[in-house]
């Protein structure tokens, strides 16, 4: 399992569009992707759970990936979050 803590930089936080972008990009990976925020784990491939987490701009989240392609999944996830999730 690999993990990294990142900061959400897009202005609107985890709204519909960023959550869609993130979950859809994670879908092809075999690894399980989770976002840990405020002590709760959220499924990184689920747009609903990502939105339900109410992650605002500036929040720090820990991304963990577990599975055969975990390194690639984490790299993609971190890149997406840091580039503002398409916002």
């Amino acid at each position, binding site marked *: 399992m690999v993990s990294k803590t990142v*900061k959400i*930089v897009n*202005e*609107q936080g985890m*709204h*519909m*569009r960023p*959550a*869609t972008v993130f*979950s*859809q990009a994670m*879908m092809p990976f075999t690894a399980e992707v989770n976002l840990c925020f405020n002590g709760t784990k959220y*499924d990184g*491939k*689920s*747009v*609903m*759970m990502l*939105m*339900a987490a*109410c992650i605002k*701009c*500036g929040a720090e989240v820990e991304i963990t990936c577990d599975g055969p392609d975990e390194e690639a999944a984490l790299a993609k996830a971190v890149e997406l979050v840091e580039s503002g999730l398409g916002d």
Partner: protein
Amino acid sequence: MYKGIEASRGIGIGSICLITDHDLSFEAKHIEDTEAEKSRLGEAVETLKVKTAAMAENIRKNIGPKEAEIMEGHIAMITDPAMSGEMNKMIDAGQCAEAAVTAVCDMFIGMFSKMEDEMMRQRASDISDVKTGLLKALLGVEDVDISKVPQGTVLVAHDLTPSMTSQIVKDNVVGIITEVGGKTSHSAILARALEIPAVLSVPGITEQVKDKDIAVVDGTEGVVYINPDGEIVSKYVIKREEFIRAQAELESFRGKETLTADGNKVELFCNIGTPKDAKKAIECDGEGIGLFRSEFLFMDKSHLPSEDEQFEAYKEAVEIMNGKTVIIRTLDIGGDKDIPYLGLEKEDNPFLGYRAVRYCLANAETYKTQLRGILRASAFGKAKIMIPLVTCVDEIRAVKALVEECKSELKAEGIGFDDKIEVGCMVETAAASLIADMLAKEADFFSIGTNDLTQYTMSVDRGNAKVAYLYSAFQPAVLRSIKNIIEAGKAAGIPVGMCGEAAADPLMIPLLISFGLDEYSVNSVLVLTARSIISKWSKADADALAQKVLALPTEEEVVAALKAAAR
């Protein structure tokens, strides 16, 4: 007459097509063959996914990629592994697919509708849309085909779901009325994109109307009439024509220069907050950027943005504007804009304290990072530097010295920049206004910030409701100040702009024409409106009005006189 929320401007008069909700009731049964039931759900998911993807494509083609994002979000929801996982679990426990869809969607709807954030609460209606779609697919219910309604139709529905809105044919639908939804709902956004008048949140309207009833939809005022008498209809026919004419008149100013009635050319720029806003400025026919607030680079971060980060952002804006002016206001923090990582102390009087250029000059290294970023961007277009909150000549001199320092550094490093980059200042304090003639000898241009100028001239905190009545740019003191600043700039031969809200105010514009303002910087959406108002005033007419107004001793009289003369 019914009142609702005005969600999309304009007037529509037409014949109602009532979209009734389908009967999606089902009998919950116990499932023995859970695998078969799960694949039945899987098929419904696939059917809805394909249908939604087609709608997304339809919207992308007919409205735009931004609007299509809603449907792309729906696809993500439909195929959400957490949702389908929950549903499959319920089927495994013996529930039928319809019951599983209902229970899981309702759980999420309940969760989202309790959220504080309005945009998140809106998502509840998306999930509801997905739920309806899945149930229809499972029950084999066909949709009403909105794309087939005849010309002159007013659509009435409990809620116009994004999937319904996506089928609307613009030429056939003249109005939209719903029982739910707000200004930021998808229906409202799509109605505005399609330029169809819409009134949302009209309570109980679906119970009050039937197919073929005549409806008047006033999306500007948020008013609806059902089967109105002839007098009301003729009133609204006239209103509709006026609206269309006014819109067409505004459009006729697109792509034109900004000229006063007697043919004097002025510049009409936009205020922006991020590089992407520059695209909007171009779309709205702005002639340049009169105020690029650089704070967005500094807010919502844990550390100072690097020179490269800043350079990229400024370069993006400058390149989008493609040779047109981009005036970048350097860091304007403090006051009401706090940046936690700077560790500024809390002050008793933040608006009179350590902010803007005062902070920048005390932290020269931080400031130089920004100045270097702007200088580097100036190699890619027409960037200008603007200093906020100037109160004395020393500040401009100090900033110019720093700019020169940065220039020699860049030269030594072999990095390109515009050697003739202009450095101007905001005139937004009482002090700057009083010594505008002296500042004009140092600055390459002025830009009047009416919001702060009003606050500092009137000594009034506009956030304080008890004194906010004093906060008006039409106070005689503020008007005199504006006049003085513009005249001082003109006497020194430098251009004077204005980037506060007043620059787009129809009442203020004739005065600015009389004083001789060179550049108006407004919110992008107001470009055509401002250009239209400027075109209605000649210098002579504006002078006559200004002379009269400047003699009036109270704000009330000033506003009354300007309103009476408004064009």
